[in-house]
């Protein structure tokens, strides 16, 4: 009984929305072209699992590959900037500026620059992840305890040891924070790129469905897109926990 109560206290908002949605469709007698009921959306999902799964898989792949490349590029450039005061001073403000502009506005430009294909989609996600990673890892490297670098040198450590024992522990947890912050935006960027370029994946499916007013399909795509976003976010959280256990 108490578990039912906890469940209800946690999920009353979500249940409420679903009930309102179904009630509104039933009572107002709206046409399915305007607003499909939750039940008809679920039945479309159950009837065409293959289409949904292949599109979601493709979007997932774009998001994960883009995040990986963006992360690697961000950490490499942050390390390069850390080795030189001049480079750091030149690049950090630019990184801050680029990490605070609305990245989705750049999608049309990148689509034209790089062409309409899957590599462009991956590049867009990578760029969305790159700038925050650069800023966060850079901040982590700046906050090394004063003189720790000198201490390592005095104690006779090799550059490789310094990198492994001093630089990486400072950089990696911050990189994971950047990853957690950019992961939801990465899925959004992937879907929007697919939508604008009309290639394949969830974004394309969405555009195609909305174009022919197949509202069950459009709502179904929304649900699958949400699940994809939640899975990517969950993976990132799990990765962050493992990395923190190892590096902190």
């Amino acid at each position, binding site marked *: 009984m108490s578990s039912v109560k906890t469940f209800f206290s946690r999920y009353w908002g979500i249940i409420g929305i679903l009930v309102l949605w179904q009630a509104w469709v039933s009572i107002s007698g709206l046409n399915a072209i305007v607003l499909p009921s939750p039940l008809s959306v679920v039945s479309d999902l159950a009837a065409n699992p293959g289409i949904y799964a292949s599109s979601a898989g493709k979007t997932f792949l774009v998001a994960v590959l883009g995040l990986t490349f963006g992360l690697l590029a961000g950490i490499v450039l942050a390390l390069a900037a850390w080795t030189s005061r001049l480079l750091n001073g030149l690049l*950090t403000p*630019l990184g801050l500026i680029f990490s*605070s502009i609305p990245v989705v506005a750049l999608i049309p430009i990148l689509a034209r620059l790089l062409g309409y294909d899957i590599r462009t989609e991956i590049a867009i996600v990578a760029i969305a992840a790159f700038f925050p990673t650069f800023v966060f890892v850079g901040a982590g490297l700046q906050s090394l305890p004063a003189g720790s670098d000198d201490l390592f040198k005095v104690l006779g450590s090799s550059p490789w040891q310094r990198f492994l024992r001093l630089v990486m522990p400072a950089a990696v947890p911050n990189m994971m924070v950047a990853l957690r912050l950019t992961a939801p935006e990465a899925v959004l960027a992937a879907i*929007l790129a697919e939508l604008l370029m009309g290639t394949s994946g969830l974004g394309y499916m969405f555009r195609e469905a909305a174009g022919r007013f197949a509202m069950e399909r459009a709502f179904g795509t929304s649900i699958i897109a949400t699940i994809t976003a939640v899975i990517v976010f969950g993976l990132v959280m799990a990765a962050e926990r493992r990395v923190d256990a190892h590096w902190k």
Partner: protein
Amino acid sequence: MILRSEAMHRLVLGAVGVGLFLFIWQLVGTYRLAGMTWPPLSDVLIFISDPARQTLFVRAMGASFTSVAIGYVLGIFCGVAVAMLGQVLPVARPGLDRLVAVIHAVPLVALAPIFMVLANRDLTPPAISALGVFYMIYVATTSGLKAATHSHRDVFSALGANAATRFFRLELPAALPALVSGMKLAIPVAFIGAIVGEWFGASRGLGLLMVSAMQNFQIPLLWSAVLIVTTASLALFGLMSLVERLIYGRFR
């Protein structure tokens, strides 16, 4: 004095970095190093300032910036209101948190069909914008409302303050720094929401201009629209950073 020269040093280097970036943009455009789709910066600026296109840009800017403003203000208002509701009615709190988290997990695009059904197409941009801002502000306000410590609360109760006084004199001022940080981070979100909303068939706006320029190979127009959006977003972001610094100086 040392500190000031350090800050000066950073400022100068940063300015040089931005200048270099603009210079490289110009260079790549002039010599067509990235192909025909990368125009020089000067071409884009001339394109924007051409009086013949003034009406086009002013109309689009008017539509988009109105959406951003409505979305931003509405999002802040709802975010603060719902966070306060959670504070006043602790029973509702866990359910509210889950609901807001689910709303946030839904990618903004996925919400478009709902708005297309519920409202007229020109209302989609401010609505999506408001939703993004709402999440940011809700999270910032709830974490800010936790900032008042137990001992402060005890002092207020011991001195006989009622719940309303405690809220306005203690919890709200304590939440202000977090709220302002949230308002700063919500600025790009408000722009993203408005642009994405316009991609779903609004009748005018900078987002619409971007998509049609992209599809019709109007390269200077495309870059101009993107430049206007990013510059506006950055300027407001900078302004909010200043406000944030003021508030942190006063309330923390």
